[in-house]
C-alpha cells in the first residue's frame, strides 16, 4: 500500500515537472540561428543534399564517433556476458531444422537485402538513410540466414576484421582532415564534385559507408552471441 502511494506520488511530481514542456514552449515558426547556418551553408560548404547526413557526419562528427564507441562498448558487454563456456562447447545443442520455404526464400532474398543495405549507406548524402540504417538492414539480412540455418557457424574472423578495419579507417580519415582540410573529420579532403551526384560531398559517402559496415558488423555480433549462447 505504501509502495503504491509512493509510486503515485512520483508520477504526479514527474507530471508537474514536465508540464511546462507543453505550456511554456512555443512552437517554432522559423529556424534558430545554428540551424539556419547549417541549412544555408550546408549544401554549398559540404556538397551533401541530405542535411541530416551533413550534420551527423561532419558538423557533429565527433558526437557520432562517440556514439559508435558506445555501441562498441555495449556489444563488447553483450559478448562478455554471453561468452561460451568450455564445457558447453563440447556438446552442441540440437536445434530444430527450419522449413523448406524459409531456407529457399533466404537464398533468394538475402543477397537482395544485403545489396539494399549497401545502397542505403552509399546514397546517405543524397536520399534519406545512411550508415546507421544501412547497417541495420544488413544485420536484418544476416538475421534471416540465422533463422534459416540455425546450425551454421558465422565466420568470426571476417566479422571482427571488418569491424576493426572500418573503425580504424574512420579514425584515419578523421585525422587526415586535420592535415588536408580545416579540422578533425572534415569531409573536404577530397573534391566536392557535382552537387547531387553519387561521387560528391567529399569524404561523406566514404565515412558513412565505414560507419555502416561498423554498425552492421556490431549488430550482427550482438545477434550472433544472443542466438548462439547456451545460457
Amino acid at each position, binding site marked *: 500500500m505504501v509502495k503504491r502511494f509512493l509510486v503515485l506520488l512520483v508520477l504526479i511530481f514527474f507530471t508537474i515537472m514536465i508540464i511546462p514542456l507543453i505550456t511554456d514552449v512555443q512552437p517554432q515558426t522559423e529556424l534558430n540561428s545554428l540551424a539556419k547556418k547549417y541549412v544555408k551553408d550546408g549544401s554549398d560548404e559540404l556538397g551533401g543534399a*541530405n542535411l*541530416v*547526413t551533413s550534420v551527423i557526419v561532419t558538423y557533429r562528427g565527433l558526437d557520432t564517433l562517440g556514439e559508435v564507441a558506445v555501441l562498441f562498448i555495449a556489444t563488447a558487454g553483450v559478448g562478455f556476458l554471453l561468452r561460451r563456456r568450455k564445457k558447453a562447447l563440447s556438446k552442441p545443442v540440437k536445434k530444430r531444422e527450419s522449413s523448406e520455404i524459409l531456407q529457399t526464400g533466404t537464398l533468394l532474398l538475402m543477397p537482395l537485402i544485403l545489396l539494399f543495405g549497401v545502397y542505403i549507406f552509399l546514397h546517405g548524402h543524397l536520399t*534519406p*538513410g*545512411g550508415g*546507421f*540504417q544501412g547497417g*541495420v*538492414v544488413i*544485420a*536484418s539480412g544476416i*538475421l534471416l540466414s540465422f533463422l534459416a540455418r540455425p546450425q551454421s557457424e558465422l565466420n568470426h574472423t571476417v566479422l571482427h576484421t571488418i569491424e576493426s578495419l572500418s573503425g580504424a579507417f574512420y579514425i584515419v580519415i578523421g585525422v587526415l582532415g586535420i592535415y588536408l582540410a580545416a579540422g578533425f573529420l572534415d569531409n573536404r579532403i577530397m573534391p566536392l564534385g557535382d552537387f547531387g551526384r553519387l561521387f560528391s560531398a567529399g569524404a561523406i559517402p566514404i565515412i558513412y559507408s565505414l560507419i555502416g559496415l561498423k554498425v552492421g558488423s556490431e*549488430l550482427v555480433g*550482438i*545477434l550472433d552471441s*544472443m*542466438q548462439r*549462447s547456451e*545460457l
Partner: protein
Amino acid sequence: MITLIIVILGILMIAGAVMAITMKSLLSSIIAAGVISLLASIIYLLLAAPDVAMTEAAIGSGLTTVVFLYAFSKVKAGEEDSNG
C-alpha cells in the same frame, strides 16, 4: 487531416503502451512494444523526418523485437527445463 491521423496514431500508441505494461503474457507485451515503435515511425514521417522514420522502423520495431524475443526464448527454455 494530418492532425486527425496523429490523434488516431496517438490513441493507438497510448493503448499499446497500456497493453504492453498490463498484459499478463510476456510475449504479447513484447509485440505491443514493437507496435508502438512502428506507429512512432509513421509519426516521424508526418513530422518531416524521414531519416528518423527509417531508423525507427528498422530498429525499433524490427531488431529490438528480435532481441527481446531471443531473451524471452532463453528465459522460457529454462522454465520448461526446471518444470519438467
